[in-house]
């Protein structure tokens, strides 16, 4: 029994086949799992079983759409960083992480003296003003648990790979 549990938390060759077949996306067909089954040589039943298990144990974070926030008009991206009291960080992380406009929320090490911040919450909005309003909402939740905070705006994307954008025309132009 424990061995089975252990196994379900690690990926095996079957999972690997499924991951390889789906890491670029789920087939846009009425019966997508049948298509994955066809590609991997596994049964659709097994594919569904394994993917459900990977969802349940967090190997798959979620199944769904990844919006391209720039394209959707969310061009202001502010990395809010906070100098947070260690003892409060988990409670506050739970609250801040639940805000719909926060895409990533992490505890990370400080790097003194230059970097006193140990809590990062990435905020996306349509304008800087909107980022500021959203960061103010975080500040309200955080209260006195944070000694100071700031927002680092991205001024330019220098590199972004690993997403599949079909912008062929521009790619050839920039080459």
């Amino acid at each position, binding site marked *: 029994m424990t061995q089975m549990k252990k196994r379900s938390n690690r990926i095996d060759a079957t999972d690997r086949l499924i991951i390889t077949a789906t890491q670029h996306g789920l087939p846009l067909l009425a019966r997508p799992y049948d298509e994955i089954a066809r590609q991997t040589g596994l049964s659709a039943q097994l594919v569904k079983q394994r993917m*459900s298990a990977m969802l349940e144990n*967090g190997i798959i974070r979620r199944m769904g759409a990844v*919006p391209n926030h720039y394209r959707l008009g969310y061009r202001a991206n502010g990395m809010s960083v906070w100098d947070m009291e260690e003892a409060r960080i988990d409670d506050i992380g739970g609250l801040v*992480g639940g805000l719909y406009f926060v895409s990533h929320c992490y505890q990370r090490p400080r790097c003194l003296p230059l*970097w006193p911040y140990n809590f990062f919450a990435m905020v996306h909005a349509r304008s800087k003003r909107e980022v500021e309003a959203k960061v103010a909402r975080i500040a309200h939740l955080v209260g006195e648990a944070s000694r100071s905070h700031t927002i680092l705006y991205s001024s330019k994307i220098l*590199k972004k790979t690993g997403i599949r954008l079909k912008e062929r025309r521009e790619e050839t132009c920039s080459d």
Partner: protein
Amino acid sequence: MKMSTGLSYRDLSQMDRSIINRLQGGLPVCDEPYEQIAASLGIGQCELIGRLSKLLEEGFLSRFGPIYNPERLGGAVTLAALEVPQERFDEVAELVNRHDEVAHNYARAHQLNMWFVIATEALAQIDEVIGKIEAQTGLKVLNFPKQKEYLIGLRFDL
């Protein structure tokens, strides 16, 4: 990397917006998952699949499907930062970006003005990549590995 094509989110129909909002939440693992979502949106399955392909093609969606957790697949990810002298910024950006392990890199308005994500197949390789970047740029890389994560589940409100 700049998107200069004419279409903007303002051109999205109400149905496309509903699809994007609805599909961030998740897709059930069942024989005909699109059917279920389509029914809840009041459209047919073919229309949903057609619109979804178009949203992907036009770049409004980066991808659609399972989002794997790289760390759970044995890989490692970290956030790193550099303080780059302004006059060397482009040169350093190129040196950093040349590494395949650098997945994202952003210029940010701060003394630490370059922030990038390093993703590798194994944890030990993170330090190797950092070592190489330091040797190539002559700059100190600050490493901010995550100690705890409090979600991943951005939902856009269109």
